[in-house]
């Protein structure tokens, strides 16, 4: 199926009544979790995962993708109006978005965020549509050595692009890999780290771990913050930015889109990182960097475009290689597995309704979010007034129900609560949970492909050097690892001089 026929087929799937409804529900829910500071898309998707069991796979993924995209739109509202990021991908939007709102330009800030999101999200989807086919064909040529090298490169990027300490990111990723070893050995079917406990035979589930780390831990962390943010009491008018504002934001949207596009594909990148980088880039290329933080419209347009472009393109590695590049996609990967489908190069041919249906519904979702977002902002503002004492117990309840209903297992509730506490402690000690969950999801692929490669070569590590794709990926790994060391040595040398 070529890209155009595929898309038409995809729309025929997306326009089925129940899929439309699910897409709509996903977008709405996503915007809601985007708006609410208590919970982000990862938590929401993991909690809602069990609800999608009864749905056909395409419908389930359509809804979960809708949540992801919706959250990217919704996050900006809270950032702009109350200076609190609704979720991590809109942290940067606070800086200039809130400043604009205080200057009475809340409407323009919200408007440019939504339009920027729409443009960037759509461009990202076009990229997904055009790249996925050829990349899937290429990915068939990827054997165990190539996969091993690419996942190793992924880990290197995850650590290299870590937002905080690189050492802590390494620790977290390794912890995730270690946790993924629990269960039956993938090659010999022998038990590992199960301590004879029957509940651990199949390993820990992605969903209970993710719900704990990103749902419960988030709530526990927020309980400490007593200061309730004040909602800016401004009349929101002029949702459409005027001509001069458009001209000012034009290139910021383009640059944000490009940065988000590529960082979305990169393992360890994704929406959150792309907002930080695109904001930094805007500030550097701007002729008036002193206005950043004082209400520069570029400072809203760039990160809001970047996170939506990244959200769209992060589906590329998942749908073609079967490698989830960021946390949200790691949880979505779990959703595919629960539905009995392994994402990978065969997905486009074996399950075209899923690939094309999800793609088409994301196009539709972008349009719906554009139309819905602006008129609904007064409603979202109302929701922000829900007191924490009602909201947080509700979220905790959803976490418990979500963890239980995946396997009807009380053990999973224990796992979820344990990881909730671990997640809370990690936050306190300034560790990121994202590398942990990525290590947890990528760990089994990493291990099994290494061992399969060595089985193929009968124990010789030469197999990684003989294959061109593998050796290129490994060389990039080495460069990425040595670069910071080189810089450290150089700095020391310069300081001495």
């Amino acid at each position, binding site marked *: 199926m070529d890209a155009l026929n595929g898309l038409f087929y995809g729309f025929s799937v997306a326009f089925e009544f*129940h899929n439309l409804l699910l897409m709509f529900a996903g977008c709405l829910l996503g915007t809601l979790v985007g708006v609410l500071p208590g919970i982000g898309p990862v938590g929401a998707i993991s909690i809602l995962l069990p*609800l*999608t*069991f*009864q*749905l*056909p*796979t395409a*419908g389930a993924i359509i809804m979960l993708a809708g949540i992801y995209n919706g959250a990217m739109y919704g996050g900006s509202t809270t950032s702009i109006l109350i200076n609190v990021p609704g979720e991590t991908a809109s942290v940067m939007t606070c800086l200039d978005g809130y400043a604009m709102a205080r200057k009475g330009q809340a409407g323009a800030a919200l408007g440019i965020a939504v339009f920027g999101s729409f443009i960037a999200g759509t461009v990202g989807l076009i990229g997904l549509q055009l790249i996925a086919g050829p990349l899937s064909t290429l990915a*068939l*040529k*990827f*054997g*165990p050595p190539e996969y091993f090298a690419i996942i190793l490169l992924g880990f290197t990027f995850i650590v290299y692009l870590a937002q905080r300490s690189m050492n802590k990111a390494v620790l977290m990723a390794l912890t995730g890999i270690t946790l993924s070893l629990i269960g*039956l050995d*993938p*090659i*010999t*079917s*022998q038990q590992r780290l199960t301590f004879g406990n*029957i*509940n651990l*035979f*199949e390993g820990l589930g992605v969903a209970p771990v993710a719900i704990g780390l990103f749902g419960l831990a988030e709530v526990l962390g927020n309980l400490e913050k007593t200061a309730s943010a004040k909602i800016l009491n401004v009349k929101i008018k002029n949702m459409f930015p005027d001509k001069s504002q458009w001209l000012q934001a034009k290139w910021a949207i383009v640059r944000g889109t490009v940065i988000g596009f590529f960082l979305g594909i990169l393992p360890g990148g994704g929406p959150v990182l792309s907002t930080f980088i695109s904001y930094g880039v805007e500030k550097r290329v701007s002729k008036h960097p002193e206005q950043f933080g004082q209400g520069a419209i570029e400072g809203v347009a760039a990160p809001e475009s970047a996170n939506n472009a990244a959200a769209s393109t992060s589906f590329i590695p998942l749908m073609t290689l079967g490698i989830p590049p960021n946390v949200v996609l790691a949880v979505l990967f779990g959703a595919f597995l*629960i*539905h*009995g*489908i*392994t994402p*990978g*190069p*065969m997905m486009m*041919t*074996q399950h075209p309704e899923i690939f094309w249906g999800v793609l088409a519904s994301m196009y539709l979702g972008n349009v719906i979010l554009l139309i819905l977002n602006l008129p609904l902002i007064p409603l979202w503002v109302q929701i922000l007034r829900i007191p924490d004492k009602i909201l947080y117990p509700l979220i905790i309840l959803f976490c418990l129900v979500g963890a239980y*209903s995946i*396997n*009807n*297992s009380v053990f999973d509730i224990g796992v979820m609560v344990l990881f909730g506490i671990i997640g809370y402690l990690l936050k306190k000690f300034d560790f990121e949970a994202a590398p942990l969950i990525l290590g947890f999801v990528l760990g089994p692929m990493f291990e*099994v492909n290494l061992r*399969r490669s060595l*089985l*193929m070569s*009968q124990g010789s590590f030469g197999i990684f050097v003989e294959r061109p794709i593998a050796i290129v990926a490994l060389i990039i790994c080495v460069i990425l690892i040595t670069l910071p060391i080189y810089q450290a040595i150089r700095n020391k040398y310069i300081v001495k001089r």
Partner: protein
Amino acid sequence: MDKIIDSHPEAPYTSRRVKYFHPGDMFVKNNHWLIAAIAAWMLVVIPLISTGEVRAAYPDRSIIILVGFVPGGSMDLSARALAKSAEKILGQPVIIENKPGGTGTVALAALLSQKPDGYTLCGTPSSVLIRVSQFQKVPFKPFTSFKPIIGFAEPQLGIVVKKDAPWKTLKDLVADAAKHPGKIKYATTGVGSTTQAAVDEIAAGHKLQMIHIPYKGSMEALTAVLGGHVEFASLTSELIPSVKAGQTRLLAVISEKRSPKFLDVPTLKELGYNFANDAVFAIVAPSDIDLAIAKKIEEAFAAATKSREYLDALDKINMLPVYYDGKAFDAFLRYHWKVINKNLKSTGAIKEAATLPE
């Protein structure tokens, strides 16, 4: 997620489980809501009109089949297909209740905690009884805790090569492997799986040296063949679409009889290897079930497996219809327990079976 709607103190059988409402059901034409409404109505009305104990002939209410896997998997879909056809014959709803966990053992254990009245049954792959229970200690005896009712479906197992591979028959492949020891690589769905045991059987007969690359499921193993990373693969049902699309060539099927989908492909047995699929989907009841009721269920399900509707539904999910009556399935389990035990020990996956079969 089940709600016990009501339990009448005098009648111990009126406690019934009604499936929790899932939003998706509205779209997949399940009528659980309707059933729930009717059940609730009956619970209110029936005690009012019948004070004495009136026991109609079995079945006088809905039958629940526990399934140890999540909805949408092959076990779940096969059981649903059977249930749908069986309820027309039994005249009562047959409801699938998913109880995933413990590689399918949770549902079997749950069945034993139910009354053996024929209103709760379990749909399980034979592999949970005779393969999983050798890997892990399970809270039941695979041969004696249950009364097998019927074996009704099986996956399509077979050995495939890429479409442009030089081997036209399994004999070609074996001859090549014998000539080049340690050169042929093959993929299976994992150590200790039926697909791997089949290749073991072939290799043992000719003393072949081949390299085994285990994969996590059929889809991954199929991808490895198509990408040329292994020379052949031993797969389950996922092979059907790829063979039909001409991406792969099917050299042999791993079943007792030839596949209705590929009548020109020989079975391993025809080729002289004493091996056939040991994974058959079955319905079992607790072992102390009333024999007359068991017989009634067996007859109804047997008739259901012959219906057009059932056969079409299986075809859509790439499963093959088979038929074992209770006795034949019991013999099937006992025979394959030994075969699997020998294979698992020889591959080093287990030292001794974790569960005693009886």
